[in-house]
């Protein structure tokens, strides 16, 4: 029974978030407005939206790194109150530790686990080292390897901690197009093998369509879900990086891009009206 994926594995209930105003008498800045969603175990979710819209903040709330102003998050039936090993995170910035080798970095992911012994930890690290294809670079210091490789180290390290959910905050944002595409296909492969529930944040439409089972499109600040897209409904089996040339892929990308454009136009005109009112 444990093998069947649980539905409602991640459950966001009416999440809102406002930051303290910058000026003493300013209004609080609302970044997320009443977002709810349910994610099944093993699903690959992509948060797509314009830069600075609050999608990263929402993901950080799921990870316990940020506290919601209102609403609750449940992961595997437990309420999220703070960060821990169950919510693994991969950042856009390189977070592999420069004082450790590739292998030691990946093994660091197992350091605070008490469900496995030292020998098992080493085995786990070996497994993920191979899974991300860095076996040959095991002993390299991480600042001797490329940015794409560093992100693979970060992914392997996070998986080695055996989290319930993998949270990825534009992890390929700083990489060139070719490396980015390669890592996308590798991530899909890893996902096929690990079936890890994932929330992936990006503002790149193609990346979203390639990776996601489901895409949540967000409005500009404060973030609300403007559309939810089940990718399989549009692409069928023509998924992944190889499916990029399929016609259906183009159509879906264009559809999503249109939505993004409309959202951008809407916010621009809103901002204009706001300015005109002030003057």
């Amino acid at each position: 029974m444990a093998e069947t994926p649980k539905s409602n594995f991640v459950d966001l209930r009416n999440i809102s978030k406002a930051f303290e105003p910058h000026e003493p008498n300013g209004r609080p800045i609302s970044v997320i407005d009443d977002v709810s969603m349910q994610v099944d175990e093993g699903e690959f979710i992509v948060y797509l939206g314009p830069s600075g819209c609050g999608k990263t903040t929402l993901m950080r709330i799921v990870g316990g790194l940020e506290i919601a102003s209102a609403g609750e998050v449940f992961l595997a039936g437990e309420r999220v109150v703070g960060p821990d090993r169950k919510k693994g995170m991969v950042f856009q910035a390189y977070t592999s530790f420069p004082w450790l080798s590739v292998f030691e970095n990946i093994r660091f992911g197992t350091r605070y686990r008490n469900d496995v012994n030292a020998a098992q930890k080493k085995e786990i690290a070996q497994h993920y080292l191979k899974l991300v294809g860095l076996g040959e670079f095991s002993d390299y210091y991480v600042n001797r390897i490329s940015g794409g490789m560093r992100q693979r180290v970060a992914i392997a390290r996070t998986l080695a901690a055996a989290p319930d959910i993998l949270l990825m905050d534009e992890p390929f944002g700083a990489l060139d197009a070719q490396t980015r595409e390669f890592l996308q296909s590798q991530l899909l492969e890893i996902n096929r093998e690990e079936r890890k529930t994932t929330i992936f944040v990006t503002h790149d439409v193609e990346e979203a369509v390639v990776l996601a089972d489901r895409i949540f499109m967000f409005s500009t600040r404060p973030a609300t879900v403007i559309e939810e897209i089940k990718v399989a409904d549009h692409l069928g089996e023509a998924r992944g990086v190889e499916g990029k040339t399929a016609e259906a892929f183009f159509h879906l990308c264009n559809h999503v891009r249109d939505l993004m454009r409309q959202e951008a136009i809407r916010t621009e005109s809103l901002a204009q009206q706001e300015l005109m009112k002030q003057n």
Partner: protein
Amino acid sequence: MNSQSLFAYRGTSSTRADVVLGIMSFVAFILLWYAVAFFEVVPQRFLPTPDKVVAALYKMLTEQQFLDDIGISVARVWVAFFMSAVLAIPIGIWMSSYRIVGTLTEPIIDFIRYLPVPALVPLLIIWFGIGESSKIAVLWMGTFFQLVLLIADDAKRVPREFIETGFTLGAKPRQITWDIVFRSMLPKIIDNLRITLGWCWTYIIIAEIVAANAGIGHAIWSARRFVKTPEVMAGILTVGIIGLLTDQAIRLAHRRAFKYL
């Protein structure tokens, strides 16, 4: 334009060239000094030739127990330096870890660090007498408050993502402090310790000149009383040499220990 050139704007050079040039600048300095003294541009009573200074140093070492003075000064410096470091490192990291600690301590530390150390010498002598403890206190006052702020700053510069990574891998704050923050900033800590050690040598000489019956500062001050300029200069030179050697030794150890940099 060849960027592998010593004369190009921000050009690069080889280690070998750097070493040769470094030695050459020393040699040029000594030659210039020799010329100025030899032709008595300045009277030799005020500026003796380098060989007279070296001879004075040799005499001090062999006949006047100058080695004991050096030993005493070195011991004072290292004891005070050690006391500064073992307190400043944990407190500095602690200041950066918890807002309450930083906010409470930073203003007062900032104030104390601007107090001129030489002005504190009389006060510290009243408090601690003219024994060893007053010298240690001078050095400690001069270095601890500077070092603790440098450490706190370095700790704050550890990327936030490193710390958040720690949390999401299941580390507790204490484990993050030791396994990630301390380890990440360790090369910076060593750098700051090296710089602080240099300050210690300034303060020890001041402290020993004011009140001491041994130490390099005391030797310099006694020689002054009889206008033995070569001996005064030999004393100063000794501090310079010790400083240069320790500095280079720490740099070398730094390079060996942190190969990943």
